[in-house]
């Protein structure tokens, strides 16, 4: 699917790991903002201002590192310690030797390769379905405006008001036996893929973006005789790359992070996602093996974050600034 490759190409092109996420599109405005914030530049550049600035900077860097990086450091090194060492008081700051044994053991005991593979399959499929289903739907609602379109949109957005937790059980029963069709989707990837596509928030984001595409652009193509599908394919999708990136990442990350839903619909230990697999086996594992498995389970999402930082942050802003 060309639209998908288009989406994934973009971040790859501009993906320096952990690069400063400055949107390159509007550098001028950015500098201007940097120029003037709540603290006045005169104050800042006074002798006292500079002292305060450097102090605050140091405090913030140190405390952020302590609060957000140190726990992760503790986790990564904790998995290199023996179980005896883990309960030692006071604890050792560095593991006595660099050992990946616990990681290897976690990988083998919990069958993490399988679990990660499953999760990748669920996330990947959910991504394809979400894009195919939500993009077409949002386009129809935004540009084709069918009869009752507003009602459909309202019903879709209304699902945002219902917490997924609350309808968990009936949703489960539905997945077990689809009404009218009688298909049983439990323990199949479909149980993750299709509900992932029923996402009112994605529809909302996409529709809002499509709304902002100038009508004239599409009308020109229409006059040339292009069908709506063709317009969607060759005009709308190429210019919607930013929002497609946002939706893609939100979808993949959500599937990867989800807990309660896969807990219910993927009961086979061979079909479990990595979060569920670890949580259900956590009770029996030696502490260091458990910690190692936590590290392994977080690597994919952190890697996604490294690579797609800019899109993720754009998604956040898109999601909330205008509601």
């Amino acid at each position: 699917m060309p639209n998908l490759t288009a989406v994934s190409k973009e971040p790859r092109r501009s993906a320096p790991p952990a690069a400063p996420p400055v949107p390159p599109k509007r550098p001028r405005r950015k500098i201007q903002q940097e120029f003037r914030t709540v603290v006045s530049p005169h104050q800042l550049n006074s002798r006292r201002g500079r002292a305060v600035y450097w102090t605050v900077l140091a405090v913030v860097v140190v405390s952020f590192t302590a609060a957000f990086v140190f726990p992760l450091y503790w986790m990564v090194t904790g998995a290199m310690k023996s179980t005896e060492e883990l309960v030692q008081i006071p604890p050792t700051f560095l593991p006595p030797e660099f050992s990946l044994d616990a990681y290897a053991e976690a990988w083998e005991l919990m069958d993490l390769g399988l679990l990660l593979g499953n999760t990748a399959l669920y996330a990947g499929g959910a991504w394809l379905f979400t894009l195919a289903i939500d993009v077409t739907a949002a386009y129809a609602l935004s540009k084709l405006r069918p009869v009752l379109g507003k009602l459909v949109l309202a019903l879709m957005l209304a699902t945002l008001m219902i917490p997924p937790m609350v309808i968990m059980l009936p949703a489960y029963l539905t997945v077990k036996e689809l009404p009218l069709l009688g298909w049983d989707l439990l323990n199949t990837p479909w149980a993750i893929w299709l509900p992932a596509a029923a996402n009112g928030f994605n529809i909302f984001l996409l529709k809002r973006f499509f709304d902002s595409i100038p009508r004239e652009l599409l009308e020109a193509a229409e006059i040339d005789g292009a069908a709506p599908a063709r317009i969607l394919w060759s005009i709308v999708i190429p210019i919607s790359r930013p929002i497609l990136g946002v939706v893609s990442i939100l979808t993949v990350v959500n599937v990867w992070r989800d807990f309660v839903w896969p807990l219910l619909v993927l009961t086979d230990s061979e079909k479990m996602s990595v979060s569920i697999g670890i949580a259900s086996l956590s009770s029996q594992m030696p502490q260091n093996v458990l910690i190692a498995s936590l590290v392994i389970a977080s690597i994919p999402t952190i890697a996604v974050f490294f690579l797609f930082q800019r899109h993720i942050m754009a998604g956040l802003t898109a999601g909330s600034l205008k509601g």
Partner: protein
Amino acid sequence: MTRSGYRRTAGLLLATALGLTASACGSGEKPAQDNARPTAEGSAAGPVSITVNCMPPKTNKAQRATFQEDLDAFQKLNPNIKVEKATDAFPCYEPRTFEAKLAGGQLETVFYVNFPNVGRLMESGQAADITPYVGELKTFKDYNASIEIFKKDGKIYGLPTDGYGMGLVYNREVFTKAGLDPNNPPRTWADVQAAAKKIAALGPGYVGFGEYSGNNVGGWHFTASLYGRGGDVISPDGEKAAFNTPEGKAVLENLKQMRWTDNSMGSKLYIDWPALMKAMAGGKMGMMIGAPDVLIGLRNDFQAKFENYTVTSLPEAKALFNGGAGYMINPKATPEQIRAGLKWIEYEFLTPGKGQLDYVRAKGANLTVGQPYPDLYGADTPSGQEVLKLRTENANVDPGQFALWVEGSKGIPAKAEPGPYAQEIYAILDTPMSAVLTRQDADIDKLLADAEAKVNTLLEQKG
């Protein structure tokens, strides 16, 4: 635009739309076929398909291998029965998914259930009546009293496959370190308290006595202690709470003293079954209430140093809480499936010399033989004697690890779960348990009175 042009365009559009969404609209068919349907197939003439659960998890390699062996052998022996699927979720009874699986028809034909949930499943009609079929089981007549747990109104809804009375599990190594005699464990609660104090004095991280306080296991162990002291949780007619008594108070008082006066219980709460097991396996905990199966669980599932652990009888016990588990049959199973399912239970769990009672194989497979359970048959029945003989001949564990429990538990009557609402009652009793373990100023009389009122409300409403 011409009519045909329109049609062509519309067709194209539809095709495109379908191309984009057809995968979503119309391709759920395939997965439906992969799923095992425990309820549907199986006619009298043809082969019967069943599903089973409680396959040992991958972390328990030895038992998993023997289980697989048994599955193959069983199907060879019964060529018309096909075990379509064996589920290996751990723990075998998973409350998170049980109800959902039953609702979704995903529940296995033969499913594992631990004693606290048996009453509830019978009460709510979620297990098949197997009364007409049990006559076909060879060893059924030899069952001891544990079968009573699966009976309701004269009907039988399941078969116990594992049963044991509660005792006191302790760590010999920790005892020795603390200067206690591991061959002479505590016999009274005062002894327990004194021993716990000595163990906790070994230093930080040492816990003299570990106890549950949440997720319904707190109430479950309260019940075990209470039964031991001669008390009861609900009245014999099942309509009133009966634990607000001197016995109930004694249970909490004892815990409170150990926790706060002696500071011998550590400050960590053990909120669920694995948490305490893991702590016990960690080698710094002295004692806990538990049945002989705890030792095997510690060895097989929690990688503990097995030889360090011993189980003795519950101190001052007047009655023993009957722990254990068994199997029930999916209420939606066909008669053929019920028959096949019972055959599997019989083969795997109830035939001396086969399945879990194949002690020759277990010995060779680095599994423990010699622990005094499962205790399923009356001592003087043929099955009971055969099991005992096989077990003694092939024993590979030190019988000393269980001898004190066997000796001390003799003649003490067994007592079952407090009725079909056991789990709700345990949830209520978690509160006093966690209260005495977390608050120094916990008012035991008030806690018991509150819990009593709550249980009474519950029973009245259900009544």
